[in-house]
């Protein structure tokens, strides 16, 4: 469990994190999105008791980040933004060193290291020097290090950056697998597709403030409005769009149209789409397709950022 309440961090004359409040339950993945310098890494550092909050509180697995820093760090696995590996060491020795730091018994740390390395497709590289690893391999090794002591909370900063698609999928699969193990995850990323795939909830942070926080559907509805549908006809519309707008006013809103297509928003597609189709049939329009226009996290993200930039933006959704 990760809990942050009005967490704030000031550096000299600069506020890096501004009253961030979060809650990540066991088995839940929270993706924290935001531009560079938004305060993601500082938030993670406060949650690992590396930086002391200027105000506010946070707890990790039930331990207070200010009062019980060593317990916090014992119960959290961290993938840092920079992997910071010891390049002259062999991978197994490297993991063994961190296992010792966490006071894992010798047999257990060897077993965990071997199993995790195999899980990430690095079983063959246990005796290789870390300096000979590719970028992706290093990233995976850093992830193995974060998971070595089997922590109930994982804070992963850009977990799949620098990875090829296959490696990235391996890591995502591992996260999904771990998620079933009742662990709480906080992932910071710029990869919106990945965040959409992995996260139960998404928090968007900007200028140190959380400006949006919720599930994908919640954010989608809040920031991009009602579901958007696209209807295509066999041939020109011939006034169909105007007719739908006039006759079904209140059920839908026309957003855009072309020669043989029209896009409309409707609050309840399950109820309203059959009515639209019936009306098309009455008018003799031959409908080829009627499908929802997929909204991506990128759309939401950009919308959130745009709204945050406007002076009269409302308080963040949370």
């Amino acid at each position, binding site marked *: 469990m990760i809990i942050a309440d009005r967490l704030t961090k000031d*550096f*000299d004359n600069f506020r890096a994190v501004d009253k961030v409040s979060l809650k990540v339950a066991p088995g839940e993945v929270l993706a924290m999105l935001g531009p560079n310098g938004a305060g993601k890494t500082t938030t993670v*550092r406060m949650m*690992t*008791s*590396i*930086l*002391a909050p200027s105000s506010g509180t946070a707890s990790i*697995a*039930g331990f207070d980040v200010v009062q019980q820093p*060593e*317990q916090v*760090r*014992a*119960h*959290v696995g*961290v993938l*840092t*933004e*920079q*992997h*910071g*590996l*010891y390049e*002259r*060491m062999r991978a197994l020795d490297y993991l063994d*060193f*961190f296992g*010792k*730091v*966490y*006071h*894992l*018994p010798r047999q*257990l740390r060897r077993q*965990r290291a071997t*199993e*995790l390395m*195999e*899980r990430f497709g690095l079983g063959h590289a246990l005796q290789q020097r870390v300096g000979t690893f590719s970028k992706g391999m290093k990233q995976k090794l*850093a992830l193995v*290090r974060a*998971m070595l*002591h*089997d*922590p*109930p909370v994982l804070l992963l900063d850009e977990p799949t950056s620098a990875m090829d698609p296959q490696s990235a999928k391996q890591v995502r699969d*591992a996260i999904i*697998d*771990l998620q*079933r*193990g*009742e*662990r709480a995850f906080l992932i910071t990323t710029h990869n919106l597709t990945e965040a959409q795939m992995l996260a139960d909830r998404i928090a968007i942070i900007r200028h140190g403030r959380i400006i949006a926080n919720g599930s994908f559907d919640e954010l989608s509805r809040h920031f991009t409005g009602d579901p958007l549908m696209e209807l295509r006809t066999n041939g020109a519309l011939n006034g169909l769009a105007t007719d739908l707008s006039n006759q079904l006013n209140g059920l839908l809103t026309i957003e855009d149209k072309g020669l043989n297509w029209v896009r409309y928003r409707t609050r309840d597609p399950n109820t309203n789409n059959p009515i639209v189709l019936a009306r098309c049939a009455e008018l003799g329009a031959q409908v080829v397709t009627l499908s929802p226009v997929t909204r991506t996290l990128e759309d939401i993200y950009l919308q959130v950022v745009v709204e945050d930039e406007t002076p009269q933006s409302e308080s963040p959704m949370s």
Partner: protein
Amino acid sequence: MASLSQPTTKGSTVATASATRSGWGKTMQNALIITQREVRDSFRDWRIVAPILILTFLFPFLAQFVAAQFAGFLAGYGAELIGERTIPFLLMIVGFFPISISLVIALETFVGEKERRSLEPLLSTPLSNTELYIGKTLAAMIPPLLASFGGMLVYLLTLLGGELAWRPPAMLIVQIFLLTIVQALVMVTGAVVVSSQTTSTRAANLLASFIVIPMALIINGESIIMFLAPDAESPQGIGALWAIIFGMLIVAILLLRVGNSIFNREELLGREIDTLNLVGAIRRVGTFIIAVNENGTPARNLLDWYRRSIPFTLRRMRVAIGLTVAVFALAFSAGFVTGQQPQWQLPLEGAQNVEIALQVFEGIEQQSLQTTALGFIIWQNGRVLLLTLLLSIFSFGVTAFIIPPVVYLLLGYLLSQMLNAGLQDLFFAATLPHAIAEIPMIILATAAIFRVGAIVTLPPGGQTVVQAWTQTFGETLKIGLGLVLPLMILAALLETYLTPPVVLSVLSG
């Protein structure tokens, strides 16, 4: 295959993260995990291993050869003594060269890790700041010290088997081994302090001259002592070298404290670039010159400054003032007791000295001389305090308890001599009138100077070293301007215009 999906509760793997030992045992156990890794890593680097091997196994033979040649050459001119004393000097050099590598390793382990960003994963582990600091400090010291001891051992063995017949006294060898250890300790702990102020190895290497230059001067001093010390052959070792060992040990302990204060997660990761915020630092110093409380609230006017701001700082100086009074009392007592020893007593004879004193003090009462004396007294006291302040900043406050107490040592000694000669009235007449202002002045000045040097060894909780130092420096200036300077002028006025008439009245009965 690992079952990653198995839930882990706090009771399983993670619970083993709490160490089985507690207190210092646990700290050292954890620190040694770091040390072990770092030492192994150092020995994987040929750039460290190659010089260590050369300095351990080749350099001692070269040193022995040079010593033999030098001794033979000097013997031809009847200067065997100088030749002999080259031998322990070269033993020290053989020991010193490998430990100079400790500086490089320390800069590498502290700044190098910061630069490569490999420190953050370590900082994310349950290890405490002290454990990390001790572990890394030991790691920087152990390989060079082993090389140093190895080199010295090889050198001593070459002495046994070589043509030089001189055998150094056992205690001198012990002293050189101890010197080597404290020098390594000072360099490594100094390197940590230097490292904390930089984010790149390049910048750290540049700043390392703050360690290298004083260390080179100390080595020069030690060499001179070894050649010239009258007790060079003493079985108890050379007294001056014991003093250096003790002094460097104190410096190392203070540097360890500073390093431990600086080596914390907040400072290490909070500093992203090498910047010197001079304007900010000056502003903070200014803030605490006029502050009436911890938050930096300024005094409203001069009266408010004296009423609230100065008492606020005086309260914060209580411990330093107490220590200063104790040190001065100790110095005065030591001077008095020394003066009672027969071998230190001066042949004072009352009547003759009274005549001399009368002549001196009658001369002082001339107006032109008084004006000169006033300026001289202020200048003399002022420059001593300024010099002490400067040295105190670089010696963690130690100098504050070395220079000013000398005055009290001398005063105690003088009192004892004048008591013996029956001139105690003259002593009190010559000191008490201006001492009313001068004693509080010197106590306050010394206490403030001590604080500004010592604060870096133990900054108050929640403050960085820079914050603590700039605040204390501001408070030192406040006490200097608000109390020390006025009292110094008052004391000089009293000493110039009041003390001489009082002395004359006592002398003329």
